[in-house]
């Protein structure tokens, strides 16, 4: 009843084999059936969803759909403002906060006809989690509810893997889209910095924050990106360009694509599990069979990229939260407040040195992209750990495969490569040069068409 992808749902709508109202009802029923175990949603907006679905259905019946997203069940991470609907960042600090306006990305998605089913669990303010001392519990991984979803876009990953929605927003400051994409076996795109406007999305660290699409497939991420990208006058970092034509380029394949593999990241700097490494090698073999060239690339060791990302993130996050932390410390969850207060101990010389080093690292990455169209490495070292065994200090443990691409701002898509010893998804990330979003999605789409891991779903 619930299609496997946005593209499939849109096809069924066009063929009059499924209606937006039927699909919205099915998704709401699935949420009611499963969310008591998964905690993907912090709020379900059933009345709004049915209103949106009826409006979409009328447009479709008139033969006037707004586009491929018209009637698609969707939900937003709970740091994304939604007019008239509480947006709490899963924190007591923002309890009861009801925005008057949609975030820029939320408005663009609503204007494209998406059906809003509700708000999704996030780590507190997109950093503090998984936490058990917040107003709502952490999301659980649909593949094994005892395991971590990844984060901070935890509810987005869980809801998509469980088939509760067909699209969701995420945000990514040091992997918060890509980690749940891999651990939950879905697809997540951290777009180029500046491509998707961020006004109305609660910031974590403005020079590293990205808002992007999460879905079941690279094709769906492309469709969502086309709707989300565009000028945002209230985000000074927004480049203003659109993403038109990204989905249309997906079918061009990867013949001749120059793939660089940052092998030392995942084999030496933070060695992946045997299954994650074997599945990545198998993925690279698929790309070779599809006609791409594959060669190793050497960059600065991963720990240095992570260190620079962590220092900038904590300093900028403290700049945002310091006033509240000083006066309302006990209202924050333990993980968030004890991570972010470290930003108070980062001096200006350290912050500026990190920004200087970032510039040099970004130049190094640019040189790598002169020789390669995309770069591939793991997105996580292995399968999802137990939800109660996630390190409190992971942000400082210098193994983030995501950090390099937050620093440079280039696009990176994370997707599944198979399954590991525990029966949980493993994954990779495909990164590109600035505003090379179409290229990374094209590579991901070619891989998914050739393999089909993205079509596997958990038994629930």
């Amino acid at each position: 009843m619930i299609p496997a992808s946005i593209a499939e749902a849109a096809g069924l709508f066009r063929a009059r084999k499924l209606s937006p109202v039927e699909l919205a009802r099915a998704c709401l029923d699935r949420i009611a059936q499963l969310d008591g175990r998964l905690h993907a949603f912090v709020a379900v907006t059933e009345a709004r969803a049915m209103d949106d679905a009826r409006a979409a259905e009328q447009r479709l019946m008139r033969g006037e759909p707004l586009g491929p997203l018209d009637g698609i069940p969707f939900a937003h991470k709970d740091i994304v403002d939604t007019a008239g609907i509480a947006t709490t960042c899963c924190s007591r600090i923002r309890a009861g906060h009801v925005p008057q306006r949609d975030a820029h990305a939320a408005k663009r998605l609503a204007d494209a006809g998406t059906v809003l089913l509700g708000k999704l669990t996030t780590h507190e303010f997109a950093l503090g989690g998984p936490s058990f001392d917040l107003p709502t519990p952490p999301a659980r991984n649909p593949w094994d509810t005892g395991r971590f979803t990844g984060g901070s876009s935890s509810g987005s990953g869980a809801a998509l893997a469980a088939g509760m929605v067909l699209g969701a927003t995420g945000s990514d400051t040091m992997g918060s889209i890509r980690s749940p994409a891999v651990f939950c076996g879905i697809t997540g795109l951290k777009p180029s910095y500046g491509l998707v406007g961020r006004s109305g999305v609660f910031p974590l660290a403005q020079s590293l924050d990205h808002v992007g699409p999460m879905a079941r497939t690279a094709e769906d991420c492309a469709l969502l990106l086309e709707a989300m990208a565009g000028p945002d006058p209230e985000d000074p970092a927004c480049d203003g360009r659109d993403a038109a034509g990204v989905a249309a380029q997906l079918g061009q394949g990867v013949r001749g694509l120059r793939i660089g593999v940052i092998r030392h990241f995942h084999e030496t700097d933070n060695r992946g599990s045997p299954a994650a490494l074997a599945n990545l090698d198998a993925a690279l073999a698929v790309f070779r069979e599809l006609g791409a060239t594959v060669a190793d690339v050497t960059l600065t060791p991963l720990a240095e990229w992570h260190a620079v990302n962590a220092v900038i993130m904590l300093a900028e996050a403290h700049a945002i939260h310091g006033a509240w932390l000083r006066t309302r410390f006990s209202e924050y969850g333990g993980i968030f407040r004890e991570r972010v207060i470290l930003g108070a101990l980062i001096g200006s010389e350290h912050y500026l040195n990190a920004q200087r080093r970032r510039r040099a690292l970004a130049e190094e990455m640019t040189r790598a992209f002169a020789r390669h169209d995309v770069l591939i490495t793991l997105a996580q070292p292995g399968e999802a750990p137990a939800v109660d065994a996630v390190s409190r200090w992971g942000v400082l443990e210098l193994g983030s495969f995501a950090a390099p691409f937050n620093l440079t701002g280039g696009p990176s898509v994370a997707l599944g490569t198979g399954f590991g010893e525990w029966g949980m998804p493993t994954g990779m990330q495909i990164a590109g040069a600035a505003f090379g979003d179409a290229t990374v999605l094209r590579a991901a789409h070619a891989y998914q068409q050739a393999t089909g891991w993205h079509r596997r779903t958990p038994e629930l």
Partner: protein
Amino acid sequence: MDETGKDAAIAAALRTAGYDLPPTIVADVARGHGLLAAVLARIGPPRPEAEPATTFRPETQR
């Protein structure tokens, strides 16, 4: 420096930053600070000839 002395130093730094926190929380923050110190140590000062991050380019629109 023993743990008590380390925690006292962190508590003092936090007070300077405007935080007066109970010892149990200071101890947790001190653990995190141990990792942070290692992270900061990886990011040394730039070469003297490196362009400072504060360079202002008036011709840049963004």
